[in-house]
């Protein structure tokens, strides 16, 4: 077993049911096995291609411009208080 689906899912912050783990484990083992085909290729001295074309830095003027109004930015929030996104408490013992 090259890939431990349960462990990797934790890294990806994805809770899996036991049924999902049982289904995904062999499927992903298969996919991993398939992609390992790339190990055959000799890439000595080959530069990695990171994008669909050769890119140069694309700068734009560093000026203040209009951004989304607070109300619009918060409109899709699952939970909010006033002008803030509401989250469960993050630090143990702190007031939420």
């Amino acid at each position, binding site marked *: 077993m090259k*890939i431990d*689906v349960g462990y*990797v*899912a*934790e*890294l*990806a*912050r*994805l*809770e*899996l*049911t036991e049924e*999902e783990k049982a*289904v*995904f484990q062999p*499927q*992903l083992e*298969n*996919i*991993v096995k*398939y*992609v*390992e*085909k*790339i*190990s*055959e*290729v000799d*890439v000595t001295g*080959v*530069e*990695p*291609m*990171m*994008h*669909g*074309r050769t*890119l140069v*830095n*694309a700068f*734009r003027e560093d000026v203040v411009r209009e951004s*989304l109004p607070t109300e*619009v*930015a918060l*409109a*899709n*929030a*699952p*939970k909010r208080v006033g002008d803030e*996104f509401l*989250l*469960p*408490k*993050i630090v143990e013992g702190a007031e939420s």
Partner: protein
Amino acid sequence: MELFELGIKQAQEGLAKGEFSSVELTQAIIDRYHAKNGEIGAYLTFDEEDALRLAKEADEVRGSAAGETHRGTGVPIAIKDLINVKGQPCTCASKILKGYVSPYDATVVKNLKANGFIPAGRVNMDEFAMGSSTENSALGVTRNPYDLTRVPGGSSGGSAAAVGGNLCIAALGTDTGGSIRQPASFCNCVGVKPSYGRVSRYGVTAFASSLDQVGPMTKSVEDAAILLKALAGHDEMDGTTPHDPVPDYVKALEGASLKGVKLGLAKEYLETAGMDPEVRRITDEAIKVCEAAGAELVEVSLPHTEYAMAVYYVIAPAEASANLSRFDGVRYGHRSELAKDVYSLYTKSRAEGFGPEVKRRIIMGTYVLSSGYYDAYYGKAQKVRTLIKRDFDQAFAKVDALLTPCAPTPAFKFGANQDPLTMYLNDLYTIPSALAGVCASSVPAGFTKDTNLPVGVQFICGGFKEEKLLKISKAFEEVRA
């Protein structure tokens, strides 16, 4: 001819001549949507009021403006449900974005509006564009208009079904590994995947950022040229779009001919196992038709083609796992009711919101990027990608375009590809050009004998050679007709 059967060019001409108004045209699409969408399921939602409001505006502008620029305004375009249109839903066919309302227009939508098009209706897709059949949509089933027992292809299956079933005038799709071209082939439409960087992705939900492109899905090559001309160009909100001027793609079609065009035929595409015999026959016929029309056939080899699928299924999931980390239940999208702390807020919201294929790809992507594996998978895949790109560079030094099949099979039945890896093989012919960042089209080429299903062929040209690509596609469309 019914109004809903029109393509962009015909619709623009009708509008310019005053044969009908944009409101009438848009209403015809809405009526067709009511009549047919229950059966085909191309659209997820259709904001009729908004479309008609924009149509009315277009009619008013056309009436008042003397300039040529406004003559053809008011053509409705169906939008794949991962492209943001202000005030409309943008679900990416995922439960995690149910109820989301776009706060702004994507640049392609701004460009459409600026060119007199109306975003009208949101079409279905595989969840987050991951899939080749639209079966991965969490929000609805889309059927192939040519055979309702079959899939429309994917991931832009809703776009293809809407175009192929005359539920729209034209549609926008996106292509990461073949998501415009394969469904276009399945539903008898023209699909163009522009070169990487040709069209802005700002406001288009990211799947694999080094590959994603927006492109037209239309009823003719000329329509694709009209739409691409509107979409393409530099956008300061997308750093991958260069300042290169956008050629007049429509003008480029004038006198389109295959005479003297060097068409590359690659054994890595044409001699693959698993190609449906009818796809083979139709592709062979397409080659003969091109030769008869004066094209010069040149044998070429792209030796790293066999590694493209493997490279893609490292790179695309890796980038997807990073892109989809933004869905955390905090600022937008689904939040689990069961979350007790921040960790479970993430893990449970994502577990409840994402479908199985998205979860698989997130896990695959996280794995290939994880400590100890990065060099062997992602780093290595990027290097092999360079070799794939070089294959194309070398081929295009000899030929104008490659002619290949578009998909290994015609549209298949629902549930036919249960195994993920088998489903992935659908993109065998479209993935290499996506990795190379070059442009490619799918053009209708014929119908299978017994099942009467549409099959397209693919033309591939070099990066930013869309004029050439469209010209060759147009010439093929003409000689095949």
